[in-house]
């Protein structure tokens, strides 16, 4: 039973860490746009370079 005296405070510390992380995320606007990140993973990321996307109509990255 004594292990409880260690584990429970430990879990509370974890909760506090989670709450802190969440507060940080909220204050940084991580929850302002929940739709766009869902698209990001569907798209190959070659944005900053100037070149065009070498022709193919759609690169098979579509949602369907």
């Amino acid at each position: 039973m004594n292990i409880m005296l260690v584990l429970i405070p430990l879990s509370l510390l974890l909760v506090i860490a989670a709450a802190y992380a969440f507060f940080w995320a909220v204050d940084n606007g991580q929850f302002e746009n929940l739709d766009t990140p869902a698209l990001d993973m569907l798209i190959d990321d070659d944005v900053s370079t100037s070149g065009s996307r070498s022709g193919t109509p759609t690169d098979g990255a579509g949602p369907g």
Partner: protein
Amino acid sequence: MRLSAASACYHCGEAIPSGSDWHVVVAGQTQAVCCPGCQAAAAWIHGQGLGDFYRLRCEQTTARPEAADFSALDRPTVRRYYGQLAADGSLSITLAVQGLRCAACGWLIERVLGGLAGVQRVEVQGLTQRVRLRFDPARQPLSAIATQLAALGYRLSLIDAADDAAQMTAERRDALKRLMVAALGMMQSMTFALSLYGGAFEGMEDSVRDFFRWISLLVTAPVVFYSSRVFFVGCWREWRARQLGMDTPIATAIALAFVASVVETLRGGPEVYFDSVTMFVFLLLLGRYAEQVVRHRARAALGNLTQGLPALATRRRGELEESVATIELEPGDEIRVRAGEVVPVDGTLLAGSSEVDESILSGESLPVSKRQGEILLAGSILRERPARLRVLRTGSDTVLSAIARAAEGAQSDKPDTLRIAERIARHFVQSLLLITPIVAGIWWWLQPDRALEVALSMLVVACPCALSLALPAALAAAGQSLSRRGILLLRSQALEELTRVRQVVFDKTGTLTQGQIRIARVHLLAPWTEAQALRIARALEREATHPIARAFGSAADDPLAMDLRQVAGQGVEASVEGCRYRLGRADFAVEQAPATWVAQAADIWLSADGRPVAGFELSDALRAEAPAVLASLRQAGLLPRILSGDAEARVAALAARLRIESWRAGQRPQDKQEQLDCWQREAGPALMVGDGVNDAPVLGRAAVAVAMGCGADLAKAHADLVLPSGQLQALPEALSTAARCAQIIRQNLAWAIGYNLIAVPAAAFGYVPAWLGALGMSLSSVLVVLNSLRLLKPAAARTRDHASPLPLGDEASPSTP
């Protein structure tokens, strides 16, 4: 559908004007665009490797790009007024971007602006259609950013610091944090509660039990003191205003259950309720958060009213003209407004006369003529000549601002049922607080050792949690469910009124039709088949781009037309397969139309070698979903009606096609209002569906007003519901959601009241052990929330549940006669 896709601009989605020939070659395919601006925008987007935007966006959101001069945005006054300057020299600014509705737009804007030099941070807020930017004005002037967005076809305006955008963001973030703390506290305290329940049955040492209780107290404290602060603050406000509302019973319940648990922990009593407290707070906050999201979205939509004003104006000093920010204008300044521009402030016309479009203000779609000395209002659009104005009122003093404020105020009305539920909960808490001491006193007299326990279990059992969750949970779920299907609920009161509506009044243009011409009927005169006539007509119209030509479309096996000759405003003539055909107005196609023809309602005719062959009757295409929507409305016992400003013949034809018996045509806005009042008097409350600006006043008169998405902003301000997607199908869905919401509210209330009626007396007589009371309280809340969540079920599953697609009539509102 294929036709409209081919004739709409690839970038902005607007119809491509006839005779225009702009194309853009992207990804190996040629796409038609309407103007060089769209061509440049599409080419640029693809050139940047952002072409996925076109595939991923769910609706046409970009407008036609417009060239504009944004240089005045770099003035220091603009910077000071709209932005916040950080210590490192970076500037934070909020832009309202029209058309920022779907995820793909957010993605595009993030990529485009994020890729600019000097831009440090781009934060797209999909909810409020706003973009928060932090950038280094020395490296990237604001005007360049604005130009970039405008070149893509986004219309933008600046949000000043005093706007409630910042406040809304802060509110939302605050609510999210409270919700999260409550969720974490709930999870933790439930873990410990489970151990405690286990210990209660299996046996647990008192020291271990007390340790668990103290830990539970520790995790519950932030939930009560941080997350629930909103309820305590609300309660305090209600007490100070001497007006008890919903926060009082909620705050009382939280405080009582928490204090009781602390007392029990201290004295080592039989039961603690920390898990019930945290769960109750979490569920309440969840409901409030959902409601807040819906409300903020609606408020942001309305915010666009005043955002429509230009941020820049041209000020005249003597003969000198300079571009300044609108906020720099002061009463008495002289400004010049170019034709086609929006008037930025209220001002008197200094010279000459001017035609202005005041539709955003008055709903009058026809231009109004103003003379020297008359006042031009901010938000109206100058039609013809440029005008010189003496500034009269600026900023929040303008008439437009006042209208926007009034529209915003109208949103905060609470539905009647919510008020009733609040009253019930209030009386309930009041009488409970009165009865409990009496019961405790009696027990003290009979059996002093059980008095405290009974009093506590009574308070806990009767905690009005279920009662206070019954309505907000259902309303929040209904609002969410509607917005998931593209319906924006601006006033939650409308949900209730929707269940009372007896008739649906449509404004014809745009609400029932698509605004695209198609062939309604073919009259055959020669021994021809319809297919033959259409085949020839298609061949003749193939090269043409005007709307009528599009009605014929094209097919793979069409013959080739030779010697094509187009006569503007008349028709087209060509040889097909050895025969000379003419297609066009009657007097063009056949030199002398027989008298019998005139009677026929065909709009254009086809002739072969001068002999009449066929007549085509054209009509504006019905929205594909219109007949089905009308059918389900009728099934729900609603009377469809048309109240239109269009010509009688057109309205009559439309009404006949949709079997609508009751209609009025050629109505002016004033007539519409009177007619609607009259109809509402004789047939009960009406649901009015409008889209035109001229519908704004009449929308205000209807019991429930629905504005289609394409409509003017003020029409939306008067509306209770907005269908941004413009899909009529949403209408029966809104009605059935409202009906289901009313039904679920009744179930929730019945359950909450029934539960309390049984549980409170049982507790008073000492039959409810404390743990059962805690369990009952938690379960009753959960049940109410789960019941409300049924509203979120997708529409398809719901229609299958019911025999009729629209479960309105019998099982719906109590108020239907």
